Protein backbone atom coordinates (compact mmCIF):
# COMPACT_ATOMS: atom_id res chain seq x y z
CA UNK A 1 0.00 0.00 0.00
CA UNK A 2 1.26 3.51 -0.76
CA UNK A 3 1.15 6.19 1.91
CA UNK A 4 -2.35 7.50 2.44
CA UNK A 5 -3.11 10.96 1.06
CA UNK A 6 -3.67 13.29 3.94
CA UNK A 7 -6.96 14.63 2.58
CA UNK A 8 -10.32 14.46 4.33
CA UNK A 9 -13.58 13.89 2.50
CA UNK A 10 -16.17 16.65 2.29
CA UNK A 11 -19.29 16.19 4.42
CA UNK A 12 -22.07 15.01 2.12
CA UNK A 13 -24.87 17.38 1.24
CA UNK A 14 -28.51 16.70 2.08
CA UNK A 15 -31.60 18.43 0.78
CA UNK A 16 -32.49 21.70 2.49
CA UNK A 17 -36.04 20.34 2.72
CA UNK A 18 -39.32 22.24 2.79
CA UNK A 19 -38.51 24.21 5.94
CA UNK A 20 -35.19 25.81 4.95
CA UNK A 21 -36.79 29.20 5.53
CA UNK A 22 -37.01 28.52 9.28
CA UNK A 23 -33.26 28.24 9.52
CA UNK A 24 -32.09 30.74 6.93
CA UNK A 25 -34.80 33.41 6.66
CA UNK A 26 -36.93 32.92 9.78
CA UNK A 27 -38.91 36.17 9.40
CA UNK A 28 -40.01 34.96 5.98
CA UNK A 29 -41.29 31.83 7.74
CA UNK A 30 -43.15 33.98 10.27
CA UNK A 31 -40.65 33.43 13.08
CA UNK A 32 -39.76 36.84 14.47
CA UNK A 33 -37.94 37.83 17.60
CA UNK A 34 -35.01 35.44 17.59
CA UNK A 35 -32.76 37.57 15.35
CA UNK A 36 -33.21 41.34 14.84
CA UNK A 37 -33.64 40.67 11.11
CA UNK A 38 -33.00 37.99 8.55
CA UNK A 39 -29.43 37.59 7.34
CA UNK A 40 -28.43 39.41 4.14
CA UNK A 41 -31.75 40.91 3.12
CA UNK A 42 -29.85 43.13 0.68
CA UNK A 43 -26.41 42.84 -0.96
CA UNK A 44 -25.99 46.62 -0.96
CA UNK A 45 -26.35 49.51 1.45
CA UNK A 46 -27.46 53.04 0.55
CA UNK A 47 -24.74 54.79 -1.38
CA UNK A 48 -23.41 51.75 -3.19
CA UNK A 49 -21.63 52.87 -6.35
CA UNK A 50 -22.89 51.82 -9.75
CA UNK A 51 -26.10 51.09 -11.57
CA UNK A 52 -28.91 49.84 -9.33
CA UNK A 53 -30.65 46.97 -11.06
CA UNK A 54 -33.53 44.62 -10.34
CA UNK A 55 -33.58 41.00 -11.46
CA UNK A 56 -36.73 38.93 -11.27
CA UNK A 57 -37.87 35.51 -12.37
CA UNK A 58 -38.93 32.05 -11.33
CA UNK A 59 -37.46 28.60 -10.98
CA UNK A 60 -39.35 25.86 -12.78
CA UNK A 61 -39.31 22.17 -11.98
CA UNK A 62 -39.48 19.42 -14.59
CA UNK A 63 -43.24 19.75 -14.94
CA UNK A 64 -43.00 23.46 -15.72
CA UNK A 65 -44.33 24.46 -12.31
CA UNK A 66 -42.84 27.59 -10.75
CA UNK A 67 -41.47 26.34 -7.43
CA UNK A 68 -42.85 28.18 -4.39
CA UNK A 69 -40.37 26.84 -1.85
CA UNK A 70 -36.92 27.56 -3.31
CA UNK A 71 -34.34 29.65 -1.51
CA UNK A 72 -31.63 31.52 -3.38
CA UNK A 73 -28.31 33.04 -2.42
CA UNK A 74 -26.37 35.47 -4.56
CA UNK A 75 -22.73 36.49 -4.42
CA UNK A 76 -21.19 39.18 -6.57
CA UNK A 77 -18.50 41.80 -7.01
CA UNK A 78 -19.04 45.55 -6.72
CA UNK A 79 -19.44 47.84 -9.73
CA UNK A 80 -15.66 47.87 -10.22
CA UNK A 81 -15.39 44.07 -10.18
CA UNK A 82 -13.98 43.79 -6.66
CA UNK A 83 -15.25 41.26 -4.16
CA UNK A 84 -15.71 42.37 -0.54
CA UNK A 85 -12.37 42.17 1.25
CA UNK A 86 -10.34 43.01 -1.86
CA UNK A 87 -8.35 46.24 -1.89
CA UNK A 88 -10.55 49.20 -2.81
CA UNK A 89 -13.81 47.22 -2.66
CA UNK A 90 -16.94 49.37 -2.22
CA UNK A 91 -17.74 49.26 1.54
CA UNK A 92 -21.45 49.65 0.69
CA UNK A 93 -21.50 46.35 -1.18
CA UNK A 94 -21.66 43.21 0.97
CA UNK A 95 -22.15 41.24 -2.23
CA UNK A 96 -24.26 38.57 -0.54
CA UNK A 97 -28.03 38.28 -0.55
CA UNK A 98 -30.60 35.69 0.45
CA UNK A 99 -34.05 35.66 -1.08
CA UNK A 100 -36.90 33.27 -1.60
CA UNK A 101 -39.42 32.40 -4.24
CA UNK A 102 -42.73 34.07 -3.40
CA UNK A 103 -45.00 31.57 -1.67
CA UNK A 104 -47.96 32.48 -3.91
CA UNK A 105 -46.43 33.28 -7.30
CA UNK A 106 -43.02 31.58 -7.12
CA UNK A 107 -41.32 34.75 -8.31
CA UNK A 108 -38.09 36.04 -6.79
CA UNK A 109 -36.68 39.56 -6.90
CA UNK A 110 -33.09 40.66 -6.35
CA UNK A 111 -32.21 44.35 -6.15
CA UNK A 112 -28.50 45.07 -6.31
CA UNK A 113 -25.77 46.96 -8.17
CA UNK A 114 -24.63 45.67 -11.49
CA UNK A 115 -21.24 44.04 -10.88
CA UNK A 116 -18.12 44.86 -12.90
CA UNK A 117 -16.00 42.40 -14.85
CA UNK A 118 -13.69 40.21 -12.77
CA UNK A 119 -10.24 38.98 -13.75
CA UNK A 120 -9.30 35.34 -13.29
CA UNK A 121 -5.97 34.07 -11.94
CA UNK A 122 -4.94 33.42 -15.54
CA UNK A 123 -5.63 37.03 -16.47
CA UNK A 124 -8.83 36.45 -18.43
CA UNK A 125 -11.77 38.79 -17.88
CA UNK A 126 -15.06 37.30 -16.85
CA UNK A 127 -18.01 39.36 -18.06
CA UNK A 128 -20.14 40.91 -15.28
CA UNK A 129 -22.05 38.16 -13.52
CA UNK A 130 -23.75 37.22 -10.26
CA UNK A 131 -23.24 33.78 -8.76
CA UNK A 132 -26.47 32.06 -7.70
CA UNK A 133 -26.90 29.10 -5.34
CA UNK A 134 -30.30 27.40 -5.17
CA UNK A 135 -31.64 25.01 -2.56
CA UNK A 136 -35.09 23.50 -2.01
CA UNK A 137 -36.92 20.33 -1.14
CA UNK A 138 -35.98 17.73 -3.73
CA UNK A 139 -32.63 19.35 -4.54
CA UNK A 140 -30.11 17.01 -2.94
CA UNK A 141 -27.02 19.11 -3.63
CA UNK A 142 -27.36 22.90 -3.83
CA UNK A 143 -27.29 24.07 -7.46
CA UNK A 144 -24.82 26.69 -8.66
CA UNK A 145 -25.34 28.88 -11.68
CA UNK A 146 -24.63 32.44 -12.84
CA UNK A 147 -26.57 35.41 -14.11
CA UNK A 148 -24.92 37.39 -16.93
CA UNK A 149 -26.40 40.48 -18.58
CA UNK A 150 -27.55 40.72 -22.20
CA UNK A 151 -25.89 44.03 -23.04
CA UNK A 152 -22.34 42.92 -22.17
CA UNK A 153 -19.71 41.45 -24.48
CA UNK A 154 -19.52 37.77 -23.58
CA UNK A 155 -17.18 36.70 -26.37
CA UNK A 156 -14.13 36.29 -24.12
CA UNK A 157 -15.86 35.05 -20.97
CA UNK A 158 -14.03 31.86 -19.97
CA UNK A 159 -17.12 30.16 -18.54
CA UNK A 160 -19.60 30.99 -21.29
CA UNK A 161 -16.97 30.05 -23.89
CA UNK A 162 -16.87 26.55 -22.45
CA UNK A 163 -20.54 25.85 -23.14
CA UNK A 164 -20.45 23.56 -26.13
CA UNK A 165 -24.14 23.76 -27.01
CA UNK A 166 -24.27 27.43 -27.90
CA UNK A 167 -28.06 27.88 -27.57
CA UNK A 168 -27.69 26.95 -23.88
CA UNK A 169 -25.57 30.07 -23.26
CA UNK A 170 -28.82 32.04 -23.30
CA UNK A 171 -30.01 30.20 -20.17
CA UNK A 172 -27.44 32.23 -18.19
CA UNK A 173 -28.20 35.64 -19.67
CA UNK A 174 -30.72 38.03 -18.15
CA UNK A 175 -32.60 40.30 -20.53
CA UNK A 176 -34.27 43.58 -19.56
CA UNK A 177 -38.04 43.73 -20.02
CA UNK A 178 -39.93 46.87 -21.04
CA UNK A 179 -40.07 47.96 -17.39
CA UNK A 180 -36.27 47.91 -17.18
CA UNK A 181 -36.24 44.81 -14.98
CA UNK A 182 -33.90 41.98 -15.87
CA UNK A 183 -35.73 38.69 -16.32
CA UNK A 184 -33.90 35.54 -15.40
CA UNK A 185 -35.73 32.24 -15.05
CA UNK A 186 -34.15 28.97 -13.99
CA UNK A 187 -35.30 25.65 -15.43
CA UNK A 188 -34.32 22.44 -13.68
CA UNK A 189 -35.20 20.28 -16.69
CA UNK A 190 -36.57 20.48 -20.21
CA UNK A 191 -35.66 22.29 -23.42
CA UNK A 192 -34.64 25.39 -21.50
CA UNK A 193 -32.66 23.59 -18.78
CA UNK A 194 -30.34 26.08 -17.11
CA UNK A 195 -26.61 25.43 -17.29
CA UNK A 196 -25.67 24.43 -13.73
CA UNK A 197 -22.07 24.61 -12.66
CA UNK A 198 -19.48 22.46 -10.94
CA UNK A 199 -16.63 24.75 -10.00
Amino acid at each position, binding site marked *: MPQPLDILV*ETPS*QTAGPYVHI*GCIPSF*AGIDGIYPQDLAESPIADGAKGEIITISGSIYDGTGWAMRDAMFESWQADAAGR*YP*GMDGADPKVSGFCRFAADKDSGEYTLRTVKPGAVQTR*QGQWMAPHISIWIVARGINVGLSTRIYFAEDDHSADPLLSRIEHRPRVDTLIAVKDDQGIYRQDFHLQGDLETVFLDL
Partner: protein
Amino acid sequence: MTDTAPLMPRRREVHPDPYDPAYKTSVTRSPKLPLLALESTPTEETGPLFTHDLIGPLDNNLIVNFTQGKGLAVGERIRVHGKVMDEQGRPVPNTLVEIWQANAGGRYRHIKDTYFAPLDPNFGGCGRTLTDEDGSYEFMTVRPGAYPWPNRANDWRPMHIHFSIFGHAFGQRLISQMYFEGDPLIARCPIVETIKDRSQIERLVAPLDMQNSRGMDYLAYRFDIVLRGRRQTRFENKLEGM
Protein backbone atom coordinates in the same frame (compact mmCIF):
# COMPACT_ATOMS: atom_id res chain seq x y z
CA MET B 1 -7.39 39.16 2.62
CA THR B 2 -7.96 35.50 3.35
CA ASP B 3 -6.59 32.60 1.32
CA THR B 4 -7.95 32.70 -2.21
CA ALA B 5 -6.27 29.68 -3.77
CA PRO B 6 -8.34 27.49 -6.12
CA LEU B 7 -10.82 25.16 -4.47
CA MET B 8 -10.35 21.44 -4.72
CA PRO B 9 -12.93 20.06 -7.13
CA ARG B 10 -16.03 18.73 -5.47
CA ARG B 11 -16.09 14.92 -5.35
CA ARG B 12 -19.62 14.46 -6.58
CA GLU B 13 -19.56 10.73 -5.80
CA VAL B 14 -19.46 11.39 -2.05
CA HIS B 15 -22.65 13.47 -2.30
CA PRO B 16 -26.21 12.25 -2.86
CA ASP B 17 -27.44 11.38 -6.30
CA PRO B 18 -29.39 14.45 -7.47
CA TYR B 19 -31.93 12.13 -9.13
CA ASP B 20 -33.24 9.38 -6.89
CA PRO B 21 -36.72 7.97 -7.60
CA ALA B 22 -37.05 6.74 -4.00
CA TYR B 23 -37.07 10.41 -2.98
CA LYS B 24 -39.92 11.36 -5.25
CA THR B 25 -39.54 15.12 -5.24
CA SER B 26 -36.02 14.80 -6.64
CA VAL B 27 -37.40 13.32 -9.86
CA THR B 28 -38.61 16.67 -11.21
CA ARG B 29 -36.05 18.77 -9.33
CA SER B 30 -32.76 17.28 -10.55
CA PRO B 31 -30.98 18.62 -13.63
CA LYS B 32 -30.97 16.09 -16.47
CA LEU B 33 -27.93 17.52 -18.25
CA PRO B 34 -24.37 17.31 -16.94
CA LEU B 35 -23.00 20.13 -14.80
CA LEU B 36 -20.44 22.40 -16.49
CA ALA B 37 -17.14 21.77 -14.69
CA LEU B 38 -14.35 24.37 -14.55
CA GLU B 39 -11.58 25.32 -12.18
CA SER B 40 -12.85 27.70 -9.52
CA THR B 41 -12.54 31.44 -10.16
CA PRO B 42 -12.46 34.40 -7.75
CA THR B 43 -16.27 34.26 -7.77
CA GLU B 44 -16.20 30.87 -6.02
CA GLU B 45 -12.97 31.42 -4.07
CA THR B 46 -14.32 34.46 -2.21
CA GLY B 47 -17.46 34.52 -0.14
CA PRO B 48 -19.38 36.39 2.53
CA LEU B 49 -17.57 36.68 5.84
CA PHE B 50 -19.39 37.32 9.09
CA THR B 51 -18.24 38.76 12.39
CA HIS B 52 -19.12 37.88 15.96
CA ASP B 53 -21.19 41.05 16.39
CA LEU B 54 -23.82 39.39 14.18
CA ILE B 55 -24.50 36.77 16.83
CA GLY B 56 -26.74 37.48 19.81
CA PRO B 57 -26.01 35.83 23.17
CA LEU B 58 -28.98 33.43 22.89
CA ASP B 59 -28.71 32.70 19.16
CA ASN B 60 -27.13 29.27 19.68
CA ASN B 61 -29.51 28.19 22.43
CA LEU B 62 -32.74 26.91 20.89
CA ILE B 63 -34.10 26.00 24.31
CA VAL B 64 -34.50 29.66 25.18
CA ASN B 65 -33.95 31.80 22.07
CA PHE B 66 -37.58 31.85 20.94
CA THR B 67 -38.81 33.22 24.26
CA GLN B 68 -35.62 35.24 24.84
CA GLY B 69 -35.18 33.38 28.10
CA LYS B 70 -38.74 33.68 29.44
CA GLY B 71 -39.54 30.01 29.01
CA LEU B 72 -37.94 26.67 28.22
CA ALA B 73 -38.64 24.49 25.20
CA VAL B 74 -40.16 21.07 25.88
CA GLY B 75 -37.98 18.05 25.24
CA GLU B 76 -34.82 16.17 26.02
CA ARG B 77 -32.05 18.73 26.50
CA ILE B 78 -29.03 18.15 24.28
CA ARG B 79 -25.79 19.88 23.43
CA VAL B 80 -24.61 19.55 19.82
CA HIS B 81 -21.00 20.47 19.26
CA GLY B 82 -18.16 19.86 16.85
CA LYS B 83 -15.57 21.33 14.59
CA VAL B 84 -15.68 22.76 11.08
CA MET B 85 -12.60 21.81 9.05
CA ASP B 86 -11.58 21.81 5.42
CA GLU B 87 -10.36 18.85 3.39
CA GLN B 88 -6.79 19.50 4.55
CA GLY B 89 -7.95 19.18 8.13
CA ARG B 90 -7.44 22.88 8.81
CA PRO B 91 -9.97 24.44 11.18
CA VAL B 92 -12.38 26.91 9.58
CA PRO B 93 -12.65 29.77 12.09
CA ASN B 94 -15.31 32.50 12.24
CA THR B 95 -17.67 30.78 9.85
CA LEU B 96 -21.43 30.97 10.17
CA VAL B 97 -23.25 27.77 11.16
CA GLU B 98 -27.05 27.86 11.10
CA ILE B 99 -29.39 25.07 12.20
CA TRP B 100 -33.11 24.38 12.07
CA GLN B 101 -35.19 21.50 13.33
CA ALA B 102 -38.57 20.16 14.39
CA ASN B 103 -39.63 20.38 18.02
CA ALA B 104 -39.55 17.43 20.41
CA GLY B 105 -42.81 16.12 18.94
CA GLY B 106 -41.57 16.25 15.35
CA ARG B 107 -43.42 19.43 14.33
CA TYR B 108 -41.93 22.47 12.58
CA ARG B 109 -43.10 25.98 13.25
CA HIS B 110 -44.10 26.42 9.60
CA ILE B 111 -47.37 27.05 7.79
CA LYS B 112 -46.76 23.99 5.58
CA ASP B 113 -46.32 21.59 8.50
CA THR B 114 -49.71 20.11 9.44
CA TYR B 115 -48.54 17.10 11.45
CA PHE B 116 -50.70 16.23 14.52
CA ALA B 117 -47.89 16.86 16.99
CA PRO B 118 -48.51 20.18 18.73
CA LEU B 119 -46.41 23.29 18.41
CA ASP B 120 -44.36 24.13 21.48
CA PRO B 121 -45.08 27.76 22.41
CA ASN B 122 -41.51 28.03 23.69
CA PHE B 123 -39.74 26.65 20.64
CA GLY B 124 -38.94 28.46 17.38
CA GLY B 125 -36.62 25.92 15.81
CA CYS B 126 -33.64 27.87 14.50
CA GLY B 127 -30.25 28.89 15.81
CA ARG B 128 -26.93 30.17 14.60
CA THR B 129 -23.37 30.62 15.76
CA LEU B 130 -19.92 31.51 14.48
CA THR B 131 -17.08 29.02 14.88
CA ASP B 132 -14.21 29.89 17.22
CA GLU B 133 -10.59 30.31 16.16
CA ASP B 134 -10.15 26.53 16.27
CA GLY B 135 -13.25 25.91 14.14
CA SER B 136 -15.39 24.65 17.01
CA TYR B 137 -19.06 25.45 17.55
CA GLU B 138 -21.85 24.41 19.90
CA PHE B 139 -25.61 24.60 20.25
CA MET B 140 -27.98 23.85 23.08
CA THR B 141 -31.30 22.49 21.89
CA VAL B 142 -33.89 19.76 22.44
CA ARG B 143 -33.79 16.44 20.65
CA PRO B 144 -36.05 16.80 17.60
CA GLY B 145 -38.80 14.24 17.13
CA ALA B 146 -39.02 11.95 14.13
CA TYR B 147 -41.88 12.82 11.80
CA PRO B 148 -43.83 11.30 8.92
CA TRP B 149 -43.65 12.90 5.48
CA PRO B 150 -45.44 12.49 2.19
CA ASN B 151 -43.30 10.28 -0.04
CA ARG B 152 -44.22 6.61 0.03
CA ALA B 153 -47.25 5.77 2.18
CA ASN B 154 -45.36 5.29 5.44
CA ASP B 155 -42.08 7.22 5.29
CA TRP B 156 -40.62 8.79 8.41
CA ARG B 157 -37.71 11.14 8.81
CA PRO B 158 -35.26 10.03 11.50
CA MET B 159 -34.51 12.57 14.19
CA HIS B 160 -32.36 15.19 12.48
CA ILE B 161 -31.03 18.71 12.64
CA HIS B 162 -30.55 20.68 9.41
CA PHE B 163 -27.18 22.42 9.11
CA SER B 164 -26.13 25.31 6.84
CA ILE B 165 -22.40 26.16 6.72
CA PHE B 166 -20.62 28.89 4.77
CA GLY B 167 -16.85 28.40 4.99
CA HIS B 168 -14.83 31.30 3.59
CA ALA B 169 -15.64 30.81 -0.09
CA PHE B 170 -18.99 30.78 -1.87
CA GLY B 171 -17.91 27.52 -3.52
CA GLN B 172 -17.70 25.87 -0.08
CA ARG B 173 -21.37 26.50 0.65
CA LEU B 174 -23.02 23.42 2.11
CA ILE B 175 -26.38 22.38 3.53
CA SER B 176 -26.65 19.00 5.20
CA GLN B 177 -28.38 17.16 8.05
CA MET B 178 -27.17 15.61 11.29
CA TYR B 179 -28.66 12.32 12.50
CA PHE B 180 -28.45 10.69 15.92
CA GLU B 181 -26.55 7.52 16.76
CA GLY B 182 -28.78 4.52 17.19
CA ASP B 183 -31.90 5.84 15.46
CA PRO B 184 -33.50 2.87 13.62
CA LEU B 185 -35.21 5.21 11.16
CA ILE B 186 -31.89 6.28 9.58
CA ALA B 187 -31.68 3.00 7.66
CA ARG B 188 -35.28 3.43 6.44
CA CYS B 189 -35.12 7.01 5.18
CA PRO B 190 -35.13 7.67 1.42
CA ILE B 191 -33.53 11.09 1.94
CA VAL B 192 -30.61 9.55 3.85
CA GLU B 193 -30.41 6.89 1.15
CA THR B 194 -29.88 9.45 -1.61
CA ILE B 195 -26.25 9.11 -0.43
CA LYS B 196 -25.04 5.92 -2.09
CA ASP B 197 -21.75 5.57 -0.20
CA ARG B 198 -22.50 3.97 3.18
CA SER B 199 -19.39 5.37 4.83
CA GLN B 200 -20.57 8.83 3.82
CA ILE B 201 -23.94 8.25 5.50
CA GLU B 202 -22.13 7.36 8.71
CA ARG B 203 -20.42 10.75 8.61
CA LEU B 204 -23.81 12.38 9.13
CA VAL B 205 -24.57 10.31 12.24
CA ALA B 206 -23.48 12.10 15.41
CA PRO B 207 -22.27 9.82 18.19
CA LEU B 208 -23.45 10.21 21.74
CA ASP B 209 -20.62 11.99 23.56
CA MET B 210 -20.96 11.12 27.25
CA GLN B 211 -17.66 12.83 28.06
CA ASN B 212 -19.10 16.17 27.07
CA SER B 213 -22.52 15.54 28.55
CA ARG B 214 -23.44 17.05 31.89
CA GLY B 215 -25.11 15.03 34.63
CA MET B 216 -28.64 16.11 35.60
CA ASP B 217 -28.60 18.57 32.67
CA TYR B 218 -27.95 17.46 29.06
CA LEU B 219 -26.60 14.75 26.77
CA ALA B 220 -23.99 15.77 24.20
CA TYR B 221 -23.67 14.77 20.55
CA ARG B 222 -20.55 15.39 18.50
CA PHE B 223 -20.87 16.48 14.86
CA ASP B 224 -17.79 17.46 12.85
CA ILE B 225 -18.12 19.02 9.41
CA VAL B 226 -15.63 19.01 6.53
CA LEU B 227 -15.84 21.67 3.82
CA ARG B 228 -14.03 21.78 0.48
CA GLY B 229 -10.35 22.66 0.79
CA ARG B 230 -8.03 24.73 -1.38
CA ARG B 231 -5.29 23.43 -3.64
CA GLN B 232 -1.64 24.32 -3.22
CA THR B 233 -0.87 26.96 -5.85
CA ARG B 234 2.92 27.20 -5.95
CA PHE B 235 4.27 28.38 -9.36
CA GLU B 236 0.78 28.88 -10.70
CA ASN B 237 0.32 32.62 -10.54
CA LYS B 238 1.43 33.37 -14.05
CA LEU B 239 -0.33 34.01 -17.30
CA GLU B 240 -1.65 31.06 -19.20
CA GLY B 241 0.78 29.54 -21.70
CA MET B 242 3.89 30.86 -20.00
